[in-house]
């Protein structure tokens, strides 16, 4: 890092430093939730900028590949699953559901300062636990079977998440390394479990999940015929809300945030970072596990295969979380968005573009998402310069700088 780099960094960080000696003014005071809201809107627009920039580059790629149909191509991407075909709509939702859950997992772990790159492993282990219970749990009544399957997935994912958490807490092993390794261990474990217990040798995959174990549709599939919808999306939203409440409203969320932001100060304050880190990873693992449950018990004809590929849904959760700036509710929408454009990308093939182009465009959007912090800073600067200009035109009135007369201020220690 160059010297000027550090200083520039400092410049941004120090910005509000001198606003210090001003006494708080009631008119200007923002309540905590209000503050969070204004911060949230910066994040929202920053994510939007990332998406728009990504799409612009996408158009350039389309133009480069086949200029004559680029316009149609862009429309197709934007339309995504909303082409009027219920099947496609259903597909885009089905694509979104697992990555919302893994995205939530990554976002939650990140809150405590951990990078959960092991969502894939947790996802697969959770999935296989759910599928195993679905197939072998013949003595469990059909009405609760799906819930038992979900609990099994939660357990599987949680155990898989806990290992890197424990290693991080007690042995200071970097969670990135351990969770990546857990992906491979998980993948082969899944293969062994399937092959030993629930193997369908004809197709080299797990047996069909019995219909009675599938996630209930609550009539959604008949209300929206052809979509194959079930209550998973609703569950996703509920989980996002729960995680949001946990991280922003609870004592545990406070500890999590404190440990994530400053482990030293947390230790000084007597917060057990070991406990926090482990619980955070257990919950993150459980969330990914639920993603696996939703994927394989959704009745969408997806089977657990034994083809030695680490599930991509786990890795795709990382950009979902990034694009949402690790906001639990944001994750819900960025997951849906990526589900949308993934289907849109497949439709691109209608115009003679190869399917891979959408992968490139998604990649660019995600690439921009990684820069979302920069977008956020840009927004912050633009907004504050606009504010400043407004103040200038307003002049020195009761709202202007003239309000701070020395007499307004109390002495430091009178």
């Amino acid at each position, binding site marked *: 890092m160059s010297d000027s780099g550090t200083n520039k960094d400092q410049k941004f960080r120090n910005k509000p430093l001198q606003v210090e000696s001003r006494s708080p003014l009631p008119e200007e005071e923002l309540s905590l939730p209000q503050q969070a809201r204004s911060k949230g809107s910066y994040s929202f627009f920053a994510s939007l900028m990332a998406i728009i920039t990504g799409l612009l580059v996408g158009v350039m790629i389309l133009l480069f590949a086949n200029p004559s149909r680029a316009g149609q191509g862009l429309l197709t991407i934007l339309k995504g699953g909303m082409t009027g075909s219920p099947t496609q709509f259903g597909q885009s939702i089905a694509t979104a559901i697992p990555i919302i859950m893994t995205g939530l997992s990554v976002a939650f772990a990140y809150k405590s300062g951990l990078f959960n790159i092991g969502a894939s492993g947790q996802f697969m282990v959770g999935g296989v636990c759910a599928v195993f219970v679905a197939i072998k749990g013949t003595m469990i009544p059909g009405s609760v079977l799906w819930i038992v399957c979900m609990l099994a997935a939660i357990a599987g994912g949680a155990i898989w998440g806990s290992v890197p958490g424990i290693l991080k807490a007690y042995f200071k092993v970097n969670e990135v390394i351990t969770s990546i390794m857990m992906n491979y261990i998980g993948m082969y474990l899944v293969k062994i479990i399937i092959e030993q217990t629930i193997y369908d040798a004809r197709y080299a995959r797990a047996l069909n999940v019995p219909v009675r174990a599938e996630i209930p549709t609550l009539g959604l599939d008949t209300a929206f015929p052809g979509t194959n919808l079930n209550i998973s999306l609703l569950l996703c939203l509920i989980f996002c809300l729960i995680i949001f409440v946990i991280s922003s409203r609870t004592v545990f969320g406070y500890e999590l945030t404190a440990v994530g932001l*400053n482990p*030293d100060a947390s230790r000084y304050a007597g917060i*057990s970072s070991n406990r926090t880190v482990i619980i955070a990873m257990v919950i993150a693992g459980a969330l990914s596990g639920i993603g696996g449950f939703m994927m394989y018990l959704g009745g969408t004809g997806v089977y657990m295969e034994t083809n030695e590929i680490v599930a991509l849904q786990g890795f795709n959760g990382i950009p979902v979380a990034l694009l949402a700036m690790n906001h639990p509710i944001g994750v819900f929408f960025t997951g849906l968005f990526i589900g949308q454009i993934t289907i849109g990308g497949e439709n691109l093939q209608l115009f003679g573009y190869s399917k891979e182009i959408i992968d490139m465009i998604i990649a660019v959007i995600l690439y921009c998402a990684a820069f979302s912090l920069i977008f956020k800073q840009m927004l912050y600067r633009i907004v504050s310069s606009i504010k400043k200009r407004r103040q200038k035109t307003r002049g020195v009135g009761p709202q202007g700088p003239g309000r701070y007369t020395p007499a307004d201020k109390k002495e*430091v220690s009178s």
Partner: protein
Amino acid sequence: MSKNVIEMDHITKRFGNFTAVDDVTFHLRQGEIHALLGENGAGKTTLVNVLFGLYAHEAGTIRIKGEPATLKNPNDANDYGIGMVHQHFMLVQNFTVLESIILGDEPTKAGIINKGKALEKALEISERYKLAIDPDAEIRNITVGQQQRVEILKMLFRENEILIFDEPTAVLTPQEIDELMSIMRNLADEGKSIIFITHKLNEIQKVADRVTILRKGKHIVTLDVADTTAEEMSELMVGRAIDFDVDKPEIERGDVVFSCENITVKREHSTKNAVHDVSLEVHAGEIVSIAGVDGNGQSELVYALTGITPPDEGRIFLNGHDISKSSIRERTEAGMAHIPEDRQRFGMILDLSLANNLVLQTYYQPRFQKHGFMRFDSIRGYADELIGRFDIRSSEGAGSMGRALSGGNQQKAIVARELDREADIIIAVQPVRGLDVGAIEYIHGQLLEQRNRGKGVLLVSFELDEVTNLSDRILVMYEGEIVADLDPDQTDERELGLYMAGKKKEVGHV
């Protein structure tokens, strides 16, 4: 009269609708040491940050060596030969001392850093200015005081002509301060021009040629130091008379509230212990100071006593109970308060709001939570109360981010939090480091009040004024051991200085 190297005329800098620097004119002459004096938030740091290219000013002109200058970033400042030692060190934690010194100005040979040459030059400077360093030590392993030396060396390494010292003496011993003063004098005599930001009036009197006093962003006056007195300067700075004498009533000292026995902390990769066999006692209604040069085991001792890094040997007692094996939270609940040395690393979570920082140790208690949910309204109410009572200033009250508070107000917030818990023993490490006269007076007053109310205070300080003014008893720490146990009325700065430098040891006390 020598010519001006810097002319800052009518500089104004606003943040939002807060005017941090208001129409300030500041001229620096060739070869002079020009002190900038003012309280926290008076605009000193903002003013030099404008000069250093960190902030863009709204109004006014800057001329450097007679030429109009626009400084957009620190690189521009560097091109003009302006170097700065910052208040909060800007060092890369896992770099070595040498790497930090040469960072940004690496002597290279065919694109590869010529470490040998760099080392030679760095050692030569370090020797010339008597700033002893270990070039291979990592920044994160050296003390705050040593880090500051690195910052100063960094600036000297670049051969800057205009040097800005932002509170450079805050962590040095009297002897080191004297050395630094003579270094600054030498530099000025060699023709370098120095801007010296400080709160310490005696340093200004010792070394500065002129002083510019700022108050609430405004230029109050520029004086020749020889023509003024400390009293006059402090009055001009604060806007009222300051009482330098600490009012310390005689009170009956109570029972022992806090003690430790034979504390030993081993050092990694060294046979020499960081803390060696330290035993001490603090009575109720007593301020016990640990004086000493930074880096003689004080930090490690405090970490051991507070549980941040448990000691290798020894036992700790609080109110008669053995807390040697207790967790930090158990110690806190047993009645220990800790004002940490590094307020940004340990004392505060900078990206949490002030309100959330004020409940850092108490957030889980029933008054702040219900069934695992935070009671933000009562946290807010509590924060507002502390903010009012301890006069913690910020732009957005309890909702301000910790980062947005000035150093002095961060420290006030920590002091407020720690003292409000009604702890029986308050372990305060450098509680007024980098603060201005007003805030120092205030925090010292708070510590004294705790003592007067029968609490025990263990004060670790590198500043002799603080030690001699506040203490009922002074312990001196040298190379991990307590080498003296003195009555402040029966000793003086010279004697303390000798103990601190290891030149003297108390008989029978090893």
